[in-house]
């Protein structure tokens, strides 16, 4: 059984009716429950009715986060290796149809970027590519990992979905973590926004996090690109997916990201609005549902908002990000994937975390 069976079980539920029938007392009972909550209670915390209890939810999420993670936030930064892509995704600058400046780093450039990033103090790195197995084959990524291993304690990948055997090869090369977003769980929307390319295969993507778990990645990070579908059902499916993986693969750390769609090169206009309040509700409900899950907030979000999210359960933040290929050290960098919002330096982010009463952590794992 894969996650699609869980998805199928819930995809046709009448969300509207479920929300209608919820009472204030139902929500309060769930928030005050002493034991872990179940899937349906998680959905109740995502309901419009629960919006009236965000502060109570925040208190509970804060307590749970403090107990499980303390006052610490891990910092990492992304490094784009290439922006070549063979897919046609309506919401992404890298889409094959878009006229952007394409670039792929050479081995020398990878080393140069690595030195620039490591000199800032980062120990955890996330490497990304566009989705082109032709331009950036597995061997290219593996070669890059061999170079990067000299500079970083932990390396994560956010690339096209792979098979179990391919993920095992990545792990052997030195990769610890896998980030792969479903983008949108709603199958119909998925078909609409992925016009062409390998990414059209909904099932191959949906099962990729599980393949990463089977291959024994240390950490698997999932998420939906918020804005492509209705946020409550997308958040619900993301939580169910994390829960499914956490239960089935207890030796893998599961994390969830909350990317909201950002301005980019392209024409996608069918965006479902996801307000700050919506994002916070998702994060709080998720923390109460899965107290041990990692929660990542990227520089897509603005600085003040990111800081206020820390006590609510954030365990990991990116900093000093560039979505451009070679954006940390190379003058003729390729175009970025999307616009980032929090453009502060690592030092500024670090100081802000301390000011909030939390400890920024650079090293959380070493592979030996």
């Amino acid at each position, binding site marked *: 059984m894969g996650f699609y069976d869980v998805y199928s079980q819930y995809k046709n539920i009448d969300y509207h009716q479920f929300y209608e029938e919820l009472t204030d007392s139902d929500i309060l009972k769930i928030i005050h429950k002493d034991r872990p909550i179940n899937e349906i209670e998680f959905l109740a915390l995502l309901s419009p009715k629960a919006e009236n209890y965000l502060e109570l939810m925040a208190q509970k999420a804060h307590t749970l986060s*403090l*107990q*499980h*993670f*303390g*006052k*610490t936030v891990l910092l990492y930064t992304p490094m784009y290796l290439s922006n070549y892509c063979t897919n046609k995704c309506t919401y992404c600058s890298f889409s094959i149809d878009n006229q952007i400046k394409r670039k792929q780093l050479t081995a020398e450039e990878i080393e140069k970027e690595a030195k620039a990033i490591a000199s800032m*103090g980062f*120990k955890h790195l996330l490497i990304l590519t566009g989705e082109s197995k032709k331009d950036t084959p597995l061997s290219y990524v593996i070669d890059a990992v061999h170079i990067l291993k000299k500079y970083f304690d932990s390396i994560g990948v956010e690339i096209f979905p792979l098979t179990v055997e391919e993920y095992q090869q990545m792990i052997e090369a030195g990769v610890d973590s896998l980030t792969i977003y479903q983008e949108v769980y709603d199958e119909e929307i998925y078909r609409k926004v992925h016009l062409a390319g390998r990414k059209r295969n909904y099932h191959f993507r949906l099962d990729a996090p599980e393949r990463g778990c089977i291959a024994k990645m240390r950490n698997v990070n999932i998420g939906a690109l918020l804005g492509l579908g209705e946020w409550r059902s997308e958040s619900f499916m993301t939580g169910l997916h994390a829960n499914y993986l*956490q*239960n089935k693969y*207890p*030796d*893998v*750390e*599961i994390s969830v990201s909350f990317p909201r769609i950002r301005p980019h090169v392209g024409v996608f206009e069918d965006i479902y609005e996801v307000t700050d309040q919506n994002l916070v509700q998702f994060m709080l409900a998720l923390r109460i549902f899965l107290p*041990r899950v990692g929660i990542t907030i990227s520089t897509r979000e603005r600085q003040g908002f990111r800081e206020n999210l820390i006590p609510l359960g954030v365990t990991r933040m990116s900093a000093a990000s560039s979505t451009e290929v070679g954006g940390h050290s190379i003058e003729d960098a390729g175009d970025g994937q999307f616009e980032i919002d929090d453009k502060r330096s690592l030092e500024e982010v670090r100081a802000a975390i*301390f000011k909030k*009463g*939390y*400890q920024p*952590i*650079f*090293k*959380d*794992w*070493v592979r*030996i």
Partner: protein
Amino acid sequence: MSKLSIGGVELKSRLFIGTGKFPNHQILPEVIQASESQVITMAIRRVNLDSKEENILEYIPKDCILLPNTSGARNAQEAVRIARLARAMGLGNWIKIEVISDNKYLLPDNAETIKATEILAKEGFVVLPYMSPDLMAAKRLVDAGAAAVMPLGAPIGTNRGLKTKELVQIIINEIDLPVIVDAGIGKPSEAAEAMEMGAAAVLVNTAIATAENPVQMAKAFSLAVKAGYLAYHAKLAEQHQLAQPSSPLTGFLYEEVR
């Protein structure tokens, strides 16, 4: 309070503390001082020797015993590699074995822990294994060469107290090595309770690190551990089902006729 001997080292304090989850490293010297703790545990995966500011060792007094832990290890092999790395980094030969392959509840894997203990004890490490409180596993850890055993009171970080009290008591009764209650202790009263049961020491991290005032909480734990230890050695008075009045109603039957 008599001294606790572990791995040939005599310790005055029976409170071990952890260094995770604090808002910064700068607070550690004050917390350690208030706790009077001599054994300080830290996760090797977080020790960052490259940066003075990030290097936790800069904040631990030199006279403390470092107890690096293998947090992050999912099997015996990984725990052994981390322990060897810790020794190579100059962190001494004490090691707390943590082998956890369950990221949901963070419960230790006793079988893998026993394997790692056996290997590392043979290599001359003073091995303190974190374990689920199971008597047979504790006995095997003794045979494997552990210097103490560290059963959990409740899952890590939960502050739920001594949920495993009955099982920990059995281990205390049956094992000759020091039994250090590790994980779950959320209140000084629970630390005192563990000591009253006959535990040799307790290890506390979350309850101190996430308290509103960690320094004051460290002091409170220090006092509680001392109180519990004294109570245990004063031999606790018997418990009774019914009240035992200090002026019994039938006392007159036994009074001498005046």
